[in-house]
């Protein structure tokens, strides 16, 4: 993406972002709240419409045309901070819906895929339950499985652990790490907004630090966390790592 801007009224949430992510690369985006991290990744699958600049995803130009938006969304999975599971459907139905409607899978095939991914996030035994019957950590794991069922080329994760109770963060982080390890095998690209240093170190190829709608610093995780180059990054890190 280049020179991407996004305005909320007169406020520039994204202010000229230039970023390219290679196929199979795993990027962690961090920064203070309101810095535009979520907006950035929400622009990648056009959940948020960018106002300026250009975004190209998997060779497809995101130009607000419905056909292109649909094409991009088919290849891009997303996990949200607040899970956003469909409350009126069972866990299994949540995972089967998009593969059937969008990919045209038959019910049997979709179920097979769904059970496979639910097993990977170790929640297959809850498949017939409704989301509200699960804990936050379990719901987020289902959300990860649901996104994976579409076999996306690119996976966007928007602060997947920040709405969780502390004791549930670990189970989701473990799932994400596994996802990262898998991604390396499958060549799936991952872009994750997260503040967990352990996760970033383990999984990320690159850390991007954003502030006030712009990318302030980027680098390898080890270098970013240990020797940040900019004062703003140092301030931020001193606040999150006590």
């Amino acid at each position: 993406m280049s020179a991407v801007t996004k305005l909320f009224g007169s406020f520039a949430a994204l202010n000229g972002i230039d970023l390219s992510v290679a196929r199979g690369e795993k990027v962690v985006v961090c920064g203070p709240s309101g810095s535009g991290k979520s907006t950035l990744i929400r622009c990648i699958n056009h959940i948020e419409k960018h106002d300026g600049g250009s975004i190209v995803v998997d060779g497809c130009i995101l130009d607000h045309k419905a056909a292109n938006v649909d094409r991009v969304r088919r290849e891009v999975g997303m996990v949200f901070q607040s899970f956003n599971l469909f409350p009126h459907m069972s866990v299994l139905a949540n995972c089967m819906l998009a593969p059937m409607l969008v990919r045209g899978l038959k019910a049997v095939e979709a179920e097979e895929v769904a059970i496979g991914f639910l097993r990977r996030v170790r929640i297959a035994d809850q498949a017939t339950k409704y989301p509200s019957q699960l804990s936050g950590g379990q719901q987020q794991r289902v959300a990860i499985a649901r996104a994976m069922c579409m076999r996306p080329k690119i996976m966007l994760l928007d602060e997947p652990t920040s709405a969780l109770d502390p004791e549930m963060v670990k189970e989701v982080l473990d799932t994400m790490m596994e996802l990262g390890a898998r991604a390396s095998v499958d060549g799936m690209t991952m872009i994750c907004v997260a503040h967990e240093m352990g996760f970033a170190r383990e999984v990320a190829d690159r850390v991007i630090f954003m502030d006030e709608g712009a990318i302030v610093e980027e680098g390898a995780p080890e270098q970013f966390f240990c020797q940040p180059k900019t004062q703003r990054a140092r301030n931020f890190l001193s606040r999150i790592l006590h």
Partner: protein
Amino acid sequence: MTADWVSGYGLQLLWGVVTTLSVTLMALIIGTVFGISLGAVKIYGAKPFRYSAEVYTALVRGVPDLIIIYLIYFGGTVALTKLTGRYVDINGFAAGVASLAFIFAAYASDIFRGAIKQVPRGQFDAAHALGLSRRAAFLRIILPQAWRLALPGFGNLAIILIKQTSLISVIGLEELLRASSVISGATRQPFLVYSVTAILYLIMTSFASWGFRHARIWSNRGFA
């Protein structure tokens, strides 16, 4: 006397009940589909459509139901006569269903609009992120959740609709109220006849309330 009640008048009342229920059901189905569409237009529609939907609701809300029924019945007759070139007497059943459905849709549209707006934005995001089309997102994700939120208001409207069908007795359709007024004229026992009729309406509305209560419980499954 007793024999009359069971054979003649009883049957006539029962037929009135059947007609009332058929009109209600037809108007409910057509009115619901139309109401959901109107509600969706009010939220997602382009400005001129949105504006028309609002005007429609305001008109229906502002004009007495009885007048709307007359307008559609006589207007329909005039229009069809003009169109076909010969006198057409419009079917009372069709005119009744149409007018009640139009009225129902106007009120239902605001209930559905409110319900659709209450579905959290994250649900749209998730549906879109999964690649669902706008149509699929609305029909599979948003509407089922909006239904649940709309149900209390919708049930209320549906019960009012059962009673509203009595209004179409004015255009000659022999539904329950019309049947009872005919019988009360014949038997000269208006109090008795209308009491029985009131009880029949009460039975229908009670069944509807009971049904909607169960629908509400059912629709809340899966929600904490």
